[in-house]
């Protein structure tokens, strides 16, 4: 098990280097010059050149990249071009709200998706099954921003039931919970459908397996047959798929945070990119990519926990 985790960690290293490289190159291709942005509209050519030299932007690209890696290794993510705040400090402030939002979204979306998918599979072809599948297709088709705007318009604005801008405090306070409700409904809402669909397919697959017949033949109650012998086995593929989907959920988090002014990494990323805040954008890209890698690692570990055949290998 430990070997399995270490092997997975080792494969994450080249992925991370690749991410850093792509992030670096991407911001080079953007037609905006960070030195010009920083210098402001009235600056002279000399000032801009000085700033460029100061930021190391006049060096060859490969050298910029290596310097960048070197600083990164020392935990130095640079300083925002816009407001001179260290990138690491901004990230430290925005990571917890993003994690909070992810957890608050997944904590209801995954169980609900598993439940709907399992029941739909069990009563395959029933009205309930068709309703769940229609809902799932709708869930897949509705973009995050649209669901978010709908919720803001109706729940937040027209009916004035819940706040829809910003974070209002820790989750253990009522205000904190009220503030996170709409963003979490939005981000989780687009996730229920895919989870339900994947679960339904996987459970259907397992329900026709020989070992389910064995479980029935020994007289187990249907509840146990479904939970222990169908859903439990179906979780193996479902967890993998959920892991992949959570990657997309990170993208959804960027949108959700932006429309709900949620003070997370996603919103920070959007702001940094829009204002050509070079180091800040890179920092957020690193964090979001790291998040993706960590999620995949967690999925791999979960996979081994769920499937004894993988554990042994």
């Amino acid at each position: 098990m430990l070997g399995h985790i270490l092997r997975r960690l080792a494969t994450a290293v080249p992925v991370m280097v690749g991410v850093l490289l792509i992030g670096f190159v991407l911001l080079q291709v953007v037609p905006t010059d960070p030195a010009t942005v920083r210098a402001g509209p009235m600056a002279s050519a000399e000032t801009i050149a000085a700033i460029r030299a100061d930021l190391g932007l006049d060096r060859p690209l490969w050298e910029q990249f290596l310097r960048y890696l070197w600083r990164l290794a020392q935990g130095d993510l640079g300083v925002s071009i816009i407001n001179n705040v260290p990138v690491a400090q901004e990230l430290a402030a925005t990571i917890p709200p993003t994690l909070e939002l992810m957890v608050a979204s997944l904590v209801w979306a995954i169980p609900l998706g598993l439940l709907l998918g399992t029941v739909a599979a069990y009563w395959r072809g029933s009205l309930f099954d068709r309703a769940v599948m229609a809902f799932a297709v709708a869930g897949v088709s509705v973009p995050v921003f649209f669901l978010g705007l709908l919720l803001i318009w109706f729940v937040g604005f027209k009916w004035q039931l819940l706040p829809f801008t910003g974070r209002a405090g820790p989750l253990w306070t009522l205000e904190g919970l009220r503030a996170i409700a709409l963003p979490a409904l939005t981000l989780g809402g687009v996730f229920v459908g895919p989870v339900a669909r994947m679960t339904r397919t996987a459970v259907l697959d397992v329900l026709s397996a020989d070992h389910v017949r064995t479980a029935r033949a020994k007289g187990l109650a249907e509840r146990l047959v479904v939970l222990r012998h169908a859903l439990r086995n179906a979780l193996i593929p479902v967890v993998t798929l959920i892991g992949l989907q959570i990657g997309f959920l990170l993208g959804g988090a960027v949108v959700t945070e932006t429309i709900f002014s949620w003070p997370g990494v996603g919103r920070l990323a959007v702001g940094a990119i829009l204002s050509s805040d070079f180091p800040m954008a890179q920092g957020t890209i690193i964090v979001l990519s790291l998040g993706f890698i960590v999620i995949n690692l967690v999925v791999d570990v979960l996979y081994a926990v769920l499937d004894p055949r993988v554990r042994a290998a």
Partner: protein
Amino acid sequence: MPEAPLLEIDNLRTVFRTGHGELPAVDGVSLVIDTGRTLCIVGESGCGKSVLALSILRLVPRPGRIAGGAIRLAGRDLTALSEAEMRGVRGAEIAMIFQEPMTSLNPVHTVGFQIEEAVLAHRAVSRREAREIAIESLARVRIPDPKRRAEEYPHRLSGGMRQRVMIAMALACRPKLLIADEPTTALDVTIQAQILDLLRELQAETGMAILLITHDLGVVAEMADEVAVMYAGRVVERGPAEAIFSDAQHPYTLGLFGSLPRLDAEAERLLAIEGTVPPPFALPSGCRFHPRCAFADGRCANDTPALRRFGERHEAACFRAPLEAMAA
């Protein structure tokens, strides 16, 4: 009043709803099994023997259903039980093992847990006691080091070992009847013999009845007290094993057993049956075997033969039997 037999299947009909309408997979089958006896059901693939077995446990998968007849276990009609009552029968009074030991166990639970589960479903014992019973059951099917084996996942065991685990699971609650659907088909020949020996030993120990489904006549010769030969959803011949082996009456039985090479009669040509079992949506009229039968005449194509007596408890459904009369 004579005591009711352990299991009595009476005119059972199991049908599958399909695009062709309701098709019978089991069509009017009647059988009897007594305590401590082994009944072998023989027939080619598709003759309905597995559906018959699943019907007894009422586990016929959708869109199949039992459409008529009765299945009486010690006089109690299983077809009339509620689903909850039926669950009390499954695993406790009638247990079943299957053809594929590789896939019949759940790969994500230890074998000990899977046996434990069967025990907990039927007996008011604690989890720890259930575990002890599970380990005992593994010991009973001659699995070495059962305590350690109980902690293993199925993928760590060989096919023969898994089938032993299946048997241990089936017998953990001491059922009166064990249904074994092709239990050795997927196993190596040497392992087959071991599993059959084990079943016989356990039968001697516990006095359970065995309903053994097979297409392997070697297995029949080894195990059967009684034999029922099925063809296209019907029993075409049944009787004591000796009678079926030495004095088969139905041309289909003769064909089946005739296709078994014999060492003591080398000169005889092997009798092969031409063609295949007709699918349920294209059943011939009259005797369902007549298109493949060398002895069929006009009557066989029009009328359905009923089972007729040819000896003590020996019956066959054929107008033309006994065939010796024709040879003369």
